[in-house]
């Protein structure tokens, strides 16, 4: 009975999140597609044409496509869950879920599924747009799919934790501005860390986004600055750690129950 309740509740939350994303598609899907198109035009076409090939015989445009796709996925996954869950807190509609007999994992997983869905839909749109500018041959499809999915899950969990602690809308904008954006830009989206001098090359290995971007780049182009196996292990460790934190916060009712 309880298991059945949780499955129905999980389906309800996931469905509600996906319906919300599709209902406000002009806010959730179109802006990231436009932003990434500008990246392709400015960095890929205008500047990239002067750079030539960057690594493994790939053009600069081809090189940045996986990074830009991953960047849009993690940004949208994070923004979706943080704004949606904080919005539920702000309107107090989160109480609908808190007073219901469902388990905390169903609440968390429902929101994560919604966030990952938005991330992957935006990623697919960006990849589609990229094909207007360059040709791509997917080297390892399963690794590519695994990398984007795990990356989206990590940032969904981080966004959920941010929303739990947030007390006002400004609080959910701080982390993307001061943490995610710098990590993404310094995570090898636009360059190979092999181009960096020491100690920056070593320091870059402390950036988790580097592993996500390179795992996905390996899946698409077959090249990577880091060990792909190690990247997947790290992503799974991040997911496990963030899940435990999020579930603990829900159990204790931090920011949710008095």
């Amino acid at each position, binding site marked *: 009975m*309880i298991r059945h*309740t949780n499955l129905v509740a999980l389906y309800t*939350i996931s469905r509600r999140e996906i319906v919300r994303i599709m209902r406000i598609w002009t806010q959730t899907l179109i802006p990231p597609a436009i932003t990434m198109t500008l990246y392709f035009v400015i960095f890929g076409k205008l500047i990239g044409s002067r750079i030539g090939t960057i690594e493994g015989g790939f053009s600069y445009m081809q090189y940045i496509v996986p990074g830009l796709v991953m960047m849009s996925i993690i940004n949208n996954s994070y923004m979706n869950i943080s704004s949606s869950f904080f919005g539920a807190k702000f*309107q107090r*509609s989160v109480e609908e879920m*808190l007073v219901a*007999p*469902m388990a905390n994992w169903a609440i968390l997983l429902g929101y994560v599924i919604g966030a990952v869905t938005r991330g992957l839909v935006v990623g697919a749109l960006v990849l589609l747009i990229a094909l207007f500018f360059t040709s791509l041959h997917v080297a390892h499809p399963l690794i590519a799919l695994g990398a984007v999915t795990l990356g989206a899950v990590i940032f969904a969990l981080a966004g959920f934790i941010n929303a739990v602690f947030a007390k006002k809308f400004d609080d959910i904008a701080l982390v993307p501005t001061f943490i995610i954006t710098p990590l993404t830009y310094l995570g090898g989206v636009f360059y190979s860390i092999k181009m960096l001098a020491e100690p920056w090359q070593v320091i870059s290995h402390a950036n988790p986004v580097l592993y996500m971007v390179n795992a996905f780049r390996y899946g698409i182009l077959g090249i990577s600055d880091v060990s792909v196996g190690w990247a997947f292990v790290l992503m799974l460790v991040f997911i496990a750690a963030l899940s435990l934190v999020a579930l603990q916060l829900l159990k204790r009712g931090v920011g949710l*129950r*008095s």
Partner: protein
Amino acid sequence: MSSAPALVVDNLRKIYGNGVEALKGISLTVQPGDFFALLGPNGAGKSTLIGILSSLVNSTSGDARVFGMSVNQQRSEAMRLIGLVPQEINFNQFEKPFDICVNEAGFYGIPRKIAAQRAEKYLKELRLWDKAQHQAREMSGGMKRRLMIARAMMNEPKLLILDEPTAGVDIEIRRSMWQFVSGINAAGTTVILTTHYLEEAESLCRNIAIIDHGTIVENTSMKRLLATLDVETFILDVTSAPAELPQLPGIILRRTDEHTLEAEMARSQDLNTLFAALSANNIMVNSMRNKTNRLEELFVRLVENGRQPPEAGESKRKGQGKAA
């Protein structure tokens, strides 16, 4: 489970992080099928109690059992039996009422097909069906409150908790809401009501607890409580109120204006004495009504004046009336 009380609150205590002790170890029991009033002034602890019962507030100590299910130890089982209509609007205002109800059912594990049927049933019963596919934010305040009742009914609870459901709602909508709630109570659902409209509590509820400063100051049946009221004040609409009023033993007669008198008298005194004296003085009474609601008079005495009504039957006093 069927023989268990609808609600047992056992020595429940809540101290908030800022040190405020909202509940000071309260205990009460609500029997199945009851229509129970939980009254108290603002800040008395009513919403804290309801928050603990619905698991939105963590208790500091003590426990509550809903039809035998511990809110602390068997949260899921207890929550499955409760429907909550909170004081504040707490649904997503950008969603449609139909979706709000269907999603609520989903949180309780009710399959979508059954949820859709229930949503239609309760939205129709609460006269919201024509708004079912509009955004909830477009609805009036009264409609939003009715939507929260419809939403609370989606899991067809055995215990429905209404926290000031008619606040700011006009009289017509309020009556229709009470008609609906009385109907589901008659069908077997136990109802706990908090309200500041004391005439509502008096006319609807069979049992009552008055809470103040985190303690129960009165817990008895409505009949017994009202029986403790020893003095009543009546307003008399008269054809012509003379300047010189007759002196009546045990009755204080006051002239409000040329057509209105006020008569304050012991409840034990019969009204015939009053009417006979007025007739003898050629004062013709056209109509008569209570000056205040009877429960309101008692409530004020218990909570604001810190006075106790006389002992009445099995009335249980769990504490002393507050000093105002």
